[in-house]
């Protein structure tokens, strides 16, 4: 049993909604332990609070009740060091070249110039951006820009990488390739990866464990172990177990997704 990296206990998040006396329950109560070095994916119907869960772990959002601990220390108002986040939206800085984008976080740290340059070069190489290092984000495709964001996170050498539907805006082939690169990166860095996705196949292909969330307010319905070997790639989709895992996910999610769609269709 590996050590716990992130631990959430009875976490709840409520929002004050306009025109409503009672705050709206967005998340939880929810318990979750991420183990050091594991690849954990979360799937759930849209609007179930997946992104809120990520923001809670990142320290970007405060919980209404419950506790969140990262490496044993509670996450309060400060965002802890050692966590990297990749968002779905394009978060590249359009005024900086690819290289400067990637170097952005390191420039703010006191560190040896040579070390900085070598970390940047490694990240550029790892994400296949060598030919584009001096280009500006606007010259790149959506997939390449997302690689820049991943590289920018990577150079900081985070011990926990949170990804919020990072491939959501990409086409299917690009997603598969990016997923494969994410697996490689996870293996090479040894970081704990927490991935939010709405794509069941993506979760089934990439993760060690998959948390399935309910319709709003998001709770963890079940956690599924995929049992994949650490050394894997996108060809795992041909494995018979892949179909089983995906089917299981859909079995759990079908009703929740209907609830979430039905809830929206109801008059206010």
């Amino acid at each position, binding site marked *: 049993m590996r050590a716990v990296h992130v631990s959430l206990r009875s976490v709840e998040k409520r929002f004050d909604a306009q025109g409503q006396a009672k705050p709206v329950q967005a998340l939880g109560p929810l318990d979750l332990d991420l183990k050091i070095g594991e690849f954990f994916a979360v799937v759930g119907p849209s609007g179930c609070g997946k992104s809120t869960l990520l923001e809670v772990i990142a320290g970007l959002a405060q919980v209404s009740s419950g506790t969140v601990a990262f490496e044993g220390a509670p996450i309060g108002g400060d965002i802890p060091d050692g966590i990297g986040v990749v968002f779905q939206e394009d*978060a590249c800085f359009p*005024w900086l070249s690819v290289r400067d984008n990637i170097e952005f976080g390191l420039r703010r740290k006191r560190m040896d110039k040579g070390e900085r340059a070598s970390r940047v070069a490694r990240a550029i190489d790892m994400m296949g951006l060598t030919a584009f290092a001096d280009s500006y984000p606007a010259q790149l495709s959506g997939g390449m820009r997302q690689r820049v964001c991943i590289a920018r996170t990577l150079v900081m050498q985070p011990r926990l990488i949170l990804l919020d539907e990072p491939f959501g805006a990409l086409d299917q082939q690009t997603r598969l390739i990016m997923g494969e690169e994410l697996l490689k990166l996870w293996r090479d860095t040894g970081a704990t990866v927490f991935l939010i996705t709405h794509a069941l196949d993506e979760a089934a292909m990439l993760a060690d464990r998959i948390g399935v969330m309910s319709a709003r307010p998001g709770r963890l319905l079940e956690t599924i172990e995929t049992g994949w070997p650490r050394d894997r790639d996108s060809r795992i989709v041909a494995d018979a177990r892949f179909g089983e895992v995906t089917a299981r996910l859909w079995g759990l999610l079908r009703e929740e997704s209907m609830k979430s769609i039905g809830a929206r269709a109801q008059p206010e």
Partner: protein
Amino acid sequence: MKSSTAYRIAILIVLIGLLEALCLTGRIDKLTMQPPHRMATDLANMLVSGKLNAAIAKTMTNAAIALALAMVVGVATAAALYRMKYAREVLDPLFATYYAIPVFAFYPLLIVVFGLGDLPQILIGFMLAVVAVIVNTLNGLDRVPRVLFKTARVHRMSGFEAGTRIMLPSAAPYILTGAKLAVAYALIGIIGAEFIMSRGGMGYEISFAYNNFDNATMYPLIVLILAVSISVNALLAAWERRIMQRRGRA
């Protein structure tokens, strides 16, 4: 060269040529206007003789000070207002109606308070320019994508650092739009004030030459002001274009 640019230049050449023809044929008499080629040679002579260099330097320096003040105060005010939602709600309508105020009406008051020196003129230029900078900077800050703030927080940046390293660079194209307006407003403010009442400067010299039927001084100065204003604007526009090209929005 793009064909639209060629047409634009052609129109200017035709208009100047027309003016030249009207002046040379006497349709426009000499006391009203010099032919354009005379304006050019007079300007060259004026600059070479250096007799108006002090006036030109004074106006340009004051305009530059007014512009720099408007940029610094304007960007800082916008950054502060961006964070103070309530103050902004209070002030926004005032900014929207600001340019309905004839700022020059305050010039006599400023002279009474500060004396007939450079300061009232710089203040007029500043007052005209600063709101354009505030409004455009706020517009730019409002358009910073939300994901960039989250990125700032993930990088554990202080509010000040997020402002200088993410918010302002992201808003740069809009700030430049404000700067272009501020250049024009600062010049208008300084030269207008010099026109109304002052002891020197290009506006003063134009007004003085006008009162003395001295077209050989008046027109070259007007041309010089035009040339400076348009050149500074073109420089800023080129910078803006470069930024926009990088961002794929050329």
